[in-house]
């Protein structure tokens, strides 16, 4: 789960990391009031869960409260990479001396957290990582020991930080790691961490991603989820225990298991070529109860791009005839006229296919293999697209 900049920074502040004393505004009037209270210049920053806000015009420096109001008016409601800005953060502008990068994340290969620092903060850190890997100092952290003092000094020394700042920097690094652990984060990042011209260290921008699996023990963070910022189908899916990601293709896919779901997507692309592809990733998880299938179907059909639906269920322990009955029940609840292909594998798969065939649903056919199923779904989608073009 991603946190907004303001959520991340306010969280950092709880752990003793110095941040600008900004506030969020949901209206231009609020922005005006905050700018007046803080004193100008201020920075008006779009709060949206996507990168590249600056380039998109989502970050502006205002010299007066009136200007802050004006910029807030421009930014609020703006769409950045498809997401609508509903809040701005008004921060006092800082006198930036130097920009540092500081972040904690998981090093999968090592199975440990890693803290990284670079004297070249502010720009795209991935770019620095690619072009000058030595400019990023890394310290792997023993999860039992935590970040040790000497490691924070190694970072400070590694990025050639003047000694006068070591103490403050070490404290920030230590607190960032504490925040990362206490928040069950998979990423806690300050970029840039600036040295102001007044010689203070300040976390100017912040980003946190929380481990979804740990939200059960992070109620305070779980509440921060910005459901406005995620497509409403994804919210719905999450609440139903379904993994769903909307994509741009035409074939609605319903699959059990994430790997098989991706494979099913890949098959529609393999046979669909440039034109036809998956409309979504959807993993209904274990079992195939009618209610869950129905919820998944509703979500798939809410996408107007969908031209055909592909069920790919590997029953595993579950019996194929039960799965088939679950799907028929769901179709009863959520009727559709879109062409559908169902592929059932597992125990009693043949009985399952017989049940589907006997139901005589005109727009539902079964397939024996994934290849056959994908090809059929592509064909249906292609026909539907052609028909649409013909109708135009």
């Amino acid at each position: 789960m991603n946190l907004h900049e303001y959520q991340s920074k306010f969280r950092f502040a709880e752990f003793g990391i110095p941040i600008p004393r900004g506030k969020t505004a949901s209206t231009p009037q609020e922005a005006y009031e905050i700018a007046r209270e803080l004193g100008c210049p201020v920075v008006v920053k779009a709060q949206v869960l996507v990168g590249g806000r600056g380039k998109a015009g989502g970050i502006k420096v205002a010299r007066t409260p009136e200007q802050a109001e004006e910029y807030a008016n421009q930014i609020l409601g703006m769409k950045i990479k498809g997401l609508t800005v509903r809040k701005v953060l008004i921060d006092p502008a800082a006198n930036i001396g130097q920009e540092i990068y500081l972040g904690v994340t998981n090093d999968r290969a090592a199975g440990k957290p890693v803290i990284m620092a670079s004297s070249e903060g502010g720009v795209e850190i991935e770019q620095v990582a690619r072009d000058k890997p030595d400019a990023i100092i890394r310290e792997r952290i023993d999860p039992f020991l935590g970040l040790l003092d000497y490691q924070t000094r190694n970072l400070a020394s590694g990025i050639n930080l003047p000694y006068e700042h070591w103490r403050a920097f070490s404290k920030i690094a230590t607190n960032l790691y504490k925040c990362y652990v206490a928040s069950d984060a998979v990423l806690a990042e300050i970029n840039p961490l600036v040295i102001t011209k007044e010689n203070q260290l300040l976390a100017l921008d912040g980003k946190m991603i929380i481990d979804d699996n740990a939200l059960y023990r992070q109620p305070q963070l779980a509440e921060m989820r910005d459901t406005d910022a995620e497509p409403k189908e994804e919210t719905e899916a999450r609440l139903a225990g379904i993994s769903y990601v909307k994509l741009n293709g035409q074939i609605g896919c319903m699959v059990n298991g994430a790997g098989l779901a991706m494979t099913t997507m890949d098959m529609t692309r393999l046979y669909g070529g440039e034109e036809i592809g998956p409309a979504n990733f959807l993993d209904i998880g274990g079992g195939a109860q009618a209610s869950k299938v129905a919820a998944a179907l509703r979500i798939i059909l809410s996408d107007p791009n969908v031209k055909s639906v592909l069920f790919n269920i590997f029953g595993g322990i579950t019996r194929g005839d039960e799965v088939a009955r679950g799907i028929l029940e769901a179709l009863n609840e959520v009727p559709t006229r879109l062409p559908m292909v169902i592929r059932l594998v597992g125990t009693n798969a043949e009985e399952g296919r017989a049940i589907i065939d006997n139901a005589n649903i005109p727009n539902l056919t079964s397939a024996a293999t994934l290849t056959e199923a994908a090809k059929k779904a592509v064909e249906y989608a292609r026909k539907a697209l052609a028909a649409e073009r013909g109708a135009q």
Partner: protein
Amino acid sequence: MAILVSKDTRLIVQGITGREGSFHTKQMIDYGTNLVAGVTPGKGGEWVHGKPVFDNVKKAVDATGANASIIYVAAPYAPDAIYEAIDAGIELIVCITEGIPILDMMKVYEYLKHSNSRLIGPNCPGLLAPGIAKIGIMPGYIAKPGNVGVVSKSGTLTYEVVYALTNAGWGQTTCVGIGGDPIIGTNFVETLQMFEEDPETEKVVLIGEIGGRAEVDAAEFIRAHMTKPVAAFIAGKSAPPGTRMGHAGAIIEGGEGTATEKIEALLSAGVRVADNPEQIPSLLH
């Protein structure tokens, strides 16, 4: 012959009285697995499917000589169950549980390094050694004894491939679902090494997916150390970069971890890579 398990494997089930634990206990016994006991705190003295239940792993080990454990315990309690198994000296621990927080798993992983235990998983379907033992949740009928080793990050996609192999006449020595979480107990390289060393295994199938760089590491290992032919399938070619795909492991990290990158690494290591999982059996010829 199989890797990881043998006829000497004596399995206990942690969480045997739970719904899932009890169900799969029956399935594993029916498959012929040498399942000797179960553990559920406070239920010591009960019996499940004819197997004794103990209050803790140590008692179960003392009473039965168990050397393997499978864990069906909810995520908040699963790390404790893993530590209990490690501390009791269990050699092979298979953890089915999904949804264990990464921070917990990093600690488990660190602890494991200094132990004599091997962990498979978590969030995995477990192991299936056709004709020998089933330790996990893979449906037994999809497999048959043979000479192909299968290792996979995935669940149902594994069944898909194993089923395709079986239908095409390729039996398996062992099918290992290592799980797709960011932190897992046993990775591709370790499993490939076991297959390379296993005299019965003649060919190997690797099933990967986007996210992380485990498949690239596997490719490097295959190039440098494997003499047996390897075929592979990588799921997620059509996934957009950076989108989370349900598996915690399936995040594309900082430009690394795309399907294309993995496929290229495998191809250049001499691995035959399928476009379609159903194509895998034909690549073994």
